[in-house]
């Protein structure tokens, strides 16, 4: 039984990583109705900036704050430069552009910092504690607590503030939001900026475990997408729940389903996502959209 719990905990540990990326994806989707495939790579870039600042001698917290502010600027600039001119274009065009962002940021990281792995300091004290036979790492708990705090904050802002309402309106219908006095462009810009900040946070939280390298987030992208889908694309807490479910399912499936084993472990989250979506097509925490004909 302790094996089971240890597997669950290890699943939660990887699940926290997926949840972090899913959170950024969900925010940008909610704020602009775009799935940014380049989100993970933009986040990796921010983590590199933090690392570079520390290499130059800045203390961790200063480096963190500066690079989070930088990420906000990068998010806003990316939106202004490449997404805004295409706001009226077909959705396919935007998909290709975000894939272009993916390639661009990864290549930039590769060019500036090279492909080798670098260690990244953890925000949390080393070590962990035991519950029964199960070992839990401080960084897992810390990561999860920070993520949940971000998600709750996001949820509150979206639900209870004027800013959040405007952002939701801007994402839902550009033309009609302008008519009721929402500054749509500013809202979309803010959405991209905030999403970049949360993505950067995610990358910084998970860089200690994955080691910093330009392709750090690439293998996680699919899991992040699955987690966001599982949770329903419009709920921040859903994204976290989705990430954790995917992580735990992967960990348990790889160990207990012998025909799957370690090399087919990716099949578990896919099957689970499919199963849940077949029952509830909008995801666990998603809400149905009503369209009038």
């Amino acid at each position, binding site marked *: 039984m302790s094996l089971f719990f240890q597997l669950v905990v290890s699943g939660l540990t990887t699940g926290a990583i997926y949840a972090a990326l899913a959170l950024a994806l969900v925010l940008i989707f909610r704020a602009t109705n775009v799935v940014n495939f380049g989100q993970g790579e933009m986040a990796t870039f921010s983590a590199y900036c933090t690392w570079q600042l520390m290499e130059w001698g800045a203390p961790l917290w200063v480096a963190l704050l500066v690079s989070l502010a930088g990420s906000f600027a990068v998010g806003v600039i990316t939106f202004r430069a490449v997404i805004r001119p295409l706001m009226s274009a077909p959705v396919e065009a935007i998909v290709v552009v975000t894939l272009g962002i993916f390639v661009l940021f990864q290549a930039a990281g590769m060019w500036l910092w090279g492909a080798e792995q670098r260690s990244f300091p953890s925000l949390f004290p080393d070590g962990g504690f035991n519950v029964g036979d199960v070992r839990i790492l401080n960084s897992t708990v810390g990561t999860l607590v920070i993520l949940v705090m971000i998600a709750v904050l996001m949820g509150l802002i979206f639900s209870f503030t004027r800013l959040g309402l405007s952002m939701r309106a801007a994402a839902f219908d550009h033309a009609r939001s302008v008519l009721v006095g929402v500054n749509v462009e500013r809202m979309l810009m803010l959405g991209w900026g905030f999403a970049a900040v949360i993505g950067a946070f995610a990358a910084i939280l998970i860089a200690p475990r994955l080691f910093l390298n330009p392709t750090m987030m690439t293998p996680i992208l699919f899991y992040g997408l699955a987690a966001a889908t599982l949770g329903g694309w419009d709920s921040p807490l859903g994204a976290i729940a989705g990430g954790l479910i995917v992580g735990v399912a992967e960990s348990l499936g790889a160990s207990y389903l012998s025909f799957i084993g370690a090399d087919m472990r990716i099949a578990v989250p896919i099957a689970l996502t499919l199963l849940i979506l077949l029952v509830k097509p*909008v995801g666990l925490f998603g809400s149905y959209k009503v369209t009038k004909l």
Partner: protein
Amino acid sequence: MSDGSRSRLVKFGLFAAAAVLLPLLLPGYALQQVCIAIAYAIAIMGLNLLMGFGGQICLAQGALFGVGAYVTAILNSDYGIHPIATLPMSATATALVGLVVGLPALRLQGLQLAIVTFGIAAAFPQLLLKMGGITGGVSGLPIDGLEAPTWVPVSPELWLYVVSQCCAGIAALLVTLMLFGDVGRALRAQRDNAQIAEALGVNLTKTRLWAFAGSSALAGLGGGVFAIITGFISPESFLAILSINIVIGSIVGGVTSVVGAFLGGLFMVFVPTWASDINLSLGNLIYGLALILIMMVARNGVTGFIEKWLSTILRRTADNTASVKETREELT
């Protein structure tokens, strides 16, 4: 002759001329690259049918492409069937697989469907490794080299080109026929508005599954051609990124165009290579910028851009004649 059909004729003429001229101008290696681009183009045509006309997103086209390639390779190396004779079988087998892949589309749409199908693409290489007994695992499978029959006096590269171009031609013909018929109309109707289409008697289940089967058959055909051209396949050729690249090729070329599929295939093969030829360490940076810039200039894909440009020119000449006519009428 109407504007549309004239520009279509011009386009087709240019395209046919390019298809004939290419092998005369290119050296052997580049010609093989073009053949690979054509193989991708066949898969893209399938995706255009499904995504451009059917409105169904499938990010597993690369995996289906792989299924086709493996069916060809297995039939050839295990059963000794002539490579070209395997192509109809790989198309059929892939269509059946595609029907299964398409099942979630009956309940899921848009983003959700994209993610689920992308999952299939991500798991596919692992599955190939897992089934090493049939697929040869990491070491892959060889396919017999194709030799031109004795009555056709051409080099092997040129023969490959002819074969792949013929397959692409058949694919293009089938897609065009399908789109001009009732199936095509039903497909477009359910894309534009599923509820209204259903109310008008379009069977959504049947139409969507047909679209998936047709699209997958083309992916399988493309995969089979790819296997014949390269003469060797391994799971490395069918990673998840291939599915993404096929989608990129489809969108860059123009999702509702057959010619666009060829442009997309050429884009997939040549642009990354050119980008790293310009500067090896900045190759991907240039490629990423190219993707973004192309979409900013040509938001409906390259064919959409060319079409708009062509029709502006044609309209300008037509306007001139029309205005002359009008002034005459005013005078009388």
